[in-house]
């Protein structure tokens, strides 16, 4: 499996990814699965411009990215896969992408979102999505950068809060 890290990060490609995670997991290809950025040439250009030229960058809509994985286009790469939201990652799973682990990086605050750790803010829909991913056997943990400890998401979101 060429995927070395799957991560949810609102900011997608930024310093934490390029400076901390990329060298830590030895990835040489960044895949961003995001409909919004894939659809806007300007945003796409900006995002591509921030990555050094020796790293391959692929930015595409979620179903297209899954299709590329299915065609085996990334066989020879070590891929760091980025989603912007829990619903995108659940979408990728439903489209048939295989991944075993999911890293929760930065999930922004927003209306209706509750703070679960310094950088993880979730609303009930997010929790439902994570529940579905968890049920599919994916190991979900929160870890902002490699120097932090990984914390399993069940420890951030205790049972009783999920029932509310």
């Amino acid at each position: 499996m060429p995927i070395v890290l799957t991560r949810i990060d609102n900011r997608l490609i930024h310093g934490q990814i390029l400076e901390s995670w990329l060298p830590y997991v030895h990835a040489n290809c960044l895949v961003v699965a995001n409909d919004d950025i894939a659809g806007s040439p300007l945003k796409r250009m900006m995002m591509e411009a921030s990555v050094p030229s020796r790293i391959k960058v692929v930015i595409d809509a979620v179903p297209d990215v899954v299709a590329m994985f299915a065609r085996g286009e990334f066989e020879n790469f070590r891929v760091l896969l980025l989603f912007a939201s829990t619903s995108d990652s659940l979408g990728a799973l439903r489209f048939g992408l295989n991944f075993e682990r999911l890293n929760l990086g930065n999930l922004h605050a927003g209306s209706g979102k509750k703070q679960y750790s310094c950088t993880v803010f979730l609303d009930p829909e997010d929790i439902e999505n994570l529940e579905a991913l968890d049920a599919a056997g994916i190991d979900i943990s929160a870890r902002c950068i490699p120097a932090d400890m990984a914390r399993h998401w069940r420890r951030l979101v205790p049972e009783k809060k999920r029932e509310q």
Partner: protein
Amino acid sequence: MSFADLFIGAVVALCCGLDRTAALQVMISRPIVAAPLAAWLLGDVAVGLQLGLMVELLWQARLPVGAVVPPDDTQIAVGATVLTLGMGAVLEQNSLAFTLLCLLIAIPFGKFGQFFDRRARLYHGRKPSLSAKMLENQQYRAMEHLHLRGLLSFGLASLLTYLVIVAGGLVLVPMLASTLLPALEAAGHWLRLLLPLVGIATILGTINVNRSLTLFGASFGMAFLLMWLV
């Protein structure tokens, strides 16, 4: 340690501490600047340069990217300097071994820096909703002041870290001096070399460059050869 030493240290701790996140970022917060500055004001720059050399690289690999709060090496540098010079005057110590003792005691207290810094940032978490309310009332000046008041909490976090390090040192340095000083006497020069090397190693281990080991090995070998032969 005299009150004046403590006070001078606190001023440096505050100014350099604010530079870390809240204001300016002209890097007076780096140990190589903060420690000599404090040491200069306390009357012995050489000690500050030693401490700067040993602390500067240790946490450089922890980049302040996004929401990451790295360990507070500024306060470790300032705290260790104040301990070395302030307590050194009282205990009549000015050796490298004593400097190292103060530094090794200050280092674990740096954890408090991370803690206080994070508390300040969490405390600021109430600002967005407050300023949204002010916007509804068209109090734009109040919003700007709300932002500026963050200087207080960041400043307080720096000062508290500094005080915890100094207080910890005041208790531990006299306690451990008799046992550890002879040992550090022998190991002093080695540690002065090894601490910067550990810093270099952590940078090498985490930097995002292909072939970093080749580059490092080549330049280390070449420089070594030059100094050996010339």
